[in-house]
């Protein structure tokens, strides 16, 4: 499950949800990386007021805006890995063995993003107790560090990225400007054109489905885009028919009390059903 707030603080309902649906990993957004005049910079860093329940693995996740990948930034991979490790160290977050990067890369930025991922992977591989004593407590040096990335539907037509696995983002599939015609969060008609790429995409993959309500303001007026449970399950079923492997790793976006209460337990049972 994704955790996308700026303060890690779980209430009893959220804790019960993680336990009830046997959620073993939380992909927690640590910070964003945004382009500034001084180059790529971290933004909206999470505060760790709370900890995850015992037995739930933390997967640090970083969202990088696409424009950061319009040109090469030599030290970005090293800075990013070092910052994540320092955040783990400072906040006593242990047993971290995976990192996920989220980026809406395009044909323009793809190659630089893939090069960046290779550098991140290489940074993770060089971690050794002797050269990074401060991180030995938060890593398991004996186990290889896993790197994953998000895959958006339009990215399925490209060569897969150099990571251990991808998470297919099955949300924000539509054009936000055409919100009166289709739900921009999820609509089977927007997913359909990409189904043909699924079976042959040569990267292990899981899938992430939306349980959030997109509330936005258009010309000062609040507009809501809720996704029906039927639509989520219809899309999930269709995707898994084309690629059964997707049922092995199922995520939802994102952990929040309001999202938990939005759907019936039956819906969550069906979403997480393997």
């Amino acid at each position, binding site marked *: 499950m994704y955790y996308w707030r700026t303060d890690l603080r779980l209430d009893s309902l959220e804790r019960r949800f993680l336990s009830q649906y046997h959620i073993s990993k939380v992909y927690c957004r640590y910070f964003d990386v945004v382009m500034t005049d001084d180059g790529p910079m971290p933004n909206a860093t999470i505060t760790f007021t709370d900890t995850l329940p015992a037995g739930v693995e933390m997967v640090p996740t970083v969202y990088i805006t696409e424009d950061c990948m319009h040109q090469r930034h030599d030290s970005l991979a090293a800075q990013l890995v070092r910052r994540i490790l320092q955040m783990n*160290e400072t906040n006593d977050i242990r047993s971290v063995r995976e990192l996920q990067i989220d980026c809406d890369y395009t044909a323009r930025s793809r190659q630089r993003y893939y090069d960046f991922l290779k550098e991140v992977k290489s940074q993770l591989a060089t971690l050794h107790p002797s050269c990074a004593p401060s991180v030995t407590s938060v890593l398991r040096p004996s186990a290889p560090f896993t790197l994953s990335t998000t895959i958006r539907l339009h990215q399925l037509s490209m060569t897969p990225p150099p990571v251990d696995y991808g998470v297919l983002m099955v949300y924000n599939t539509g054009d936000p400007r055409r919100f009166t015609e289709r739900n921009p969060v999820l609509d089977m008609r927007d997913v359909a054109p990409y189904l043909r790429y699924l079976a042959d995409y040569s990267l292990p993959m899981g899938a992430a489905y939306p349980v959030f309500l997109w509330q936005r303001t258009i010309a000062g*007026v609040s507009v809501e885009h809720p996704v029906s449970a039927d639509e989520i399950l219809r899309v999930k079923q269709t995707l898994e028919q084309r690629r059964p492997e997707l049922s092995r790793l199922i995520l939802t976006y994102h952990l929040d009390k309001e999202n938990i209460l939005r759907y019936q337990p039956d819906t969550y049972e069906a979403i997480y059903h393997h």
Partner: protein
Amino acid sequence: MKRFIIISLLWAVSLPLLACAWPATHNYYLFSPCANDEFNERMNKLTSDNWQAYIGSTAEYYYFDADEVIAAARKKNDALMVSYVEQLQRYLACADEKRNERWEYPTKAQLAKRTQTLKSVRAYAQGKLRTRLRSQHALLYMRCNMMLGLHQKNVDFYQQTASKFIESVYRDMMENIYAGALLKTGRSIEAADIFARQGDWQSLMTQFYKRRSYDAIRQEYLRDPDSAVLPFLLKDFVNNAQEAVDGDDVMPGKLFVRNIQQKEAMQMCQLATQVVQQRKSQHLAMWQSAKAWLQFLFGKRQQAARDILEAVGMSGTERMQDNVRVLMLYITAAESPASQRLDDFLATELAWLDTKVGTDDRFYRNALDRLVHQVLAQKYERQPLRAVSILRAADSQYYDTYVDTMQVGRLQQYIDYLSAPATTALDGYLKPRQKADMQALNDLVGTKYMRLCQWQQAQQWLAKVPLTYYNNKGYAVYAANRRYTIEPWVTRQWLKEGMEYSDRKWQLKSNPKLVFAAEMQKMEGELSILSGQARQQRCYDLAVRYAQASFTGDCWFLMRDGKSWGDSVRVNEVCLADKALALLATASLSADAALKERALFAMSYGGLYQQKWYNERWDAKTYDAFREPNPASRNYKAFAALADFERTTSKTVSLYVSRCDEYRQFLKHYHHF
């Protein structure tokens, strides 16, 4: 560059207006029961003023500089201030460090050091609570607590100690921190009351972000009919509803949103009715005016007019009463037919609004803007004199465009109106606010006659305008460097690089418009006595002048103040290109092959046509644009006539024709070749 910018801006403003009379919505919010006096800005200003006064700075804009203050304090032997600012510096460094955490995430040791620093500053501040700078130190103490997460301590401290301090900007800031601490410790209602009272809109909106609905407002009213939060929530709700209505034509899909809003808005009207009936609130004027404005927005305008009248005299703050008056002005103006009675009402109410417009509060200026552009401009559409004087009185951005496109006779009436004594109350209000620029108006009347090719009348008005007026116009660089006698189809008069963007002041030798008008009058007057070859040559020469003065010509400044690629013939203006074409058609009948060729070539000049000899198409396969000939177009026919002439004449094709790239491209497509 300056000149270029001026011309560009002129067109940026006026171009959209040519296509549609009032394209901008001017949809400023009219429901404003509390002022937009943002807490943060107010505090920043007050603290900044305090520091500036302490160091004796006279800078126009002052920004706090700790070192500067310390130096000033040392000079004054103010040891307490020195130590306070030093400690404040330590606190601010911690705050900045937290705010600026970039790639270097703090280590445990750094965090521990930060905590230690904050605790040390906090201890220092606590020890100075009985000094003459007790308020400053108390604020520092609470700031440290806030960053250390000691919110309950701040609650206790403010209640037991700081709240008893004398009124000052420091106590206001402490109270704000106290409200934040209340929120963090679960006492959100008390927090909201303080945020609302202080005008801390940002904090309120953060707190109420997900509770900005009819239900939330109703609950808040039931909890406390005079809750300080209610004006903010109601303001947000009503203005939100206004957006739904105002934006209906702009945003696709707004109808869907509006239907939701309309239902909720009508619920809010019912609630307002109940509130007024129950009389538990001190702010009945606010509720009644909210109801009236919502009714108005959602089409129940007559009901709105009755409701807003009832709001007059109801209880409320001064601001709420003013808001009632603004809404009454707007709704009454919109709902009443144009009449003497309405004019008298407007005269009184606009004069009142003017007394408010000059204040720092933008609400009143925005209200005037909306009233003028959304109501009065349409109301007086059939009374151009009234419309133009209202636009002028309100300093409307559309005044220039309005006078530029109005009929010349009407503009002359406006000039007469300016010098006549006021006979009605509304005129009495409008006349002193006209700020007429007679040179510009005389030039404009003369130019309007030029646009109608009425050269004699044009000269009468243009003769009143001094040369300095034209020297100061943005187009003086073009007027000084271009000639209307040059054939535009043979030579384009591009200015030397940099000339258009230089700051050079151009001194014209004569009034360019006056000279042109006089010459045109003379040349056209002589046309009737000319015949044969001389007449055809005169037609050609006149065509050159018309083509140059048209909006696509190099001497466009003769007819207008600016130029744009998207321009067209405007209202109350003769199409000069058509005049040129008609004259060229006569010239092309000449038996003189050279003149005939010149006239035919001129008639094929693209600058004389809206529709070119081809249509631009896009080839999806080659990803490139291509030209598709359009034989039905006048431009195509003109090129064909030229091509046919060149094919059949015994005369050698002139170089200016054979070298013309446009002609060559045409020939490639022309089926005869």
